[in-house]
């Protein structure tokens, strides 16, 4: 598992190695590659996203950086900008550590 508490300023997107299902109106994530990373692996873990998490998860279908996610969060939930950014970074750290999001390569600039 990762131990860095900060996320980079780059863009983030959903990892291909996570299974997401709607169950009971909620989004459930099951990381698929935790076995490869974790020698203490003892079986799959299920993660249920809260309302804010679902909102961010939907946005992460396309690569976005933390600032962009925070901006959307501010608009949707009327959250203060600094609080929104802190929440987004914490969310990305949590999802990065379970292998549910990954850094997206920067688009080529001609």
């Amino acid at each position, binding site marked *: 598992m990762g131990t860095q508490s900060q996320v980079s300023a780059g863009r983030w997107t959903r990892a291909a190695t996570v299974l997401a299902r709607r169950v009971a109106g909620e989004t459930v994530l*099951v990381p698929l590659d935790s076995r490869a990373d974790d020698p203490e692996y003892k079986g799959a873990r299920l993660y249920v996203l809260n309302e804010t998490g679902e909102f961010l998860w939907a946005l992460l279908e396309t690569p976005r950086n933390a600032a962009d996610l925070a901006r959307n969060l501010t608009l949707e939930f009327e959250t203060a900008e600094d609080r929104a950014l802190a929440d987004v970074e914490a969310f990305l750290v949590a999802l990065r550590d379970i292998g549910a999001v990954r850094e997206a390569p920067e688009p080529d600039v001609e």
Partner: protein
Amino acid sequence: MAVLRVGAVAGIPIVHELCDGIRLERLDVVDWAGTSEVSEPVVIRHELGDATTTRLRRMLDVPPWCTFHLDAAGEPAALFYGVFGEVDRLLTTVTPGTRYRVRYAAAPSDPVVALQSELTAFSFAIAARGAGLIAHACAFITATGHGVLCPGISGTGKTTLARLLRDADPAVELLTDDRAIVTLDDRGVRVWGSPWPGAGKVAGVRSAPLTTLVFIRHGQRVEQRVVTPAEAFRRIVNTLSMPLWEPARCGRPLEVIDGIVSRARLIELAFPPTTDAARWVVTEADDRFAVSAA
């Protein structure tokens, strides 16, 4: 080699291949005729051999009964300990979904109780097939044809409720007092009985659309509470044979759970051990109140 065929469970026949003079204890402790056979059987081969787990990765201990493991291909295995003087035996996957092998460390002197290896192999197989889940539950069909699932860990009252239902309403068809099978297909979610009963020895072969989910617990009086789908998901997941050893196989079970909690009526019920309370459960599950699964 002797062959013992067990009637189909939720449409899946079970075949035991018995090598080396291994005999299975009579499985007809319950009268299990089997459901209609609709798919390929699960074959469990019993033989003498290496029952050590040196090539397996230890995943989960369930003392004193068994430990669960993964083989190099990521397929599940289980080592059952001779708690009651039997020999240790190792269940491994040969072909996911269809063939499993039980190896005995030494020749068993007595007929072998098949329950553990059979139930575990079946749970591995239906997970590999994406066919459904085994629920630790009491289940029954109301007179109007509604399937009711009452999940709960040991001690929550599954066998008690089954016995009370038997007395309370002869029109109720009991499916199981311990292990139900839940499947999802184009017709929706169905609940089935199984040949693996609890102390009440309830083993019904029929199935019905699952329309009501009742979380039971003992209580001084009948108390009912509506449960939200989200709470139902969190509560039922602990009573199901989720293939947590392989995350990639959790998708279909999650769809089955969503099928259950999204379509069935969801209630929590505290009940005292009386036939009146059991009658109340049946009334609540009856079509006059239940949400249709259609």
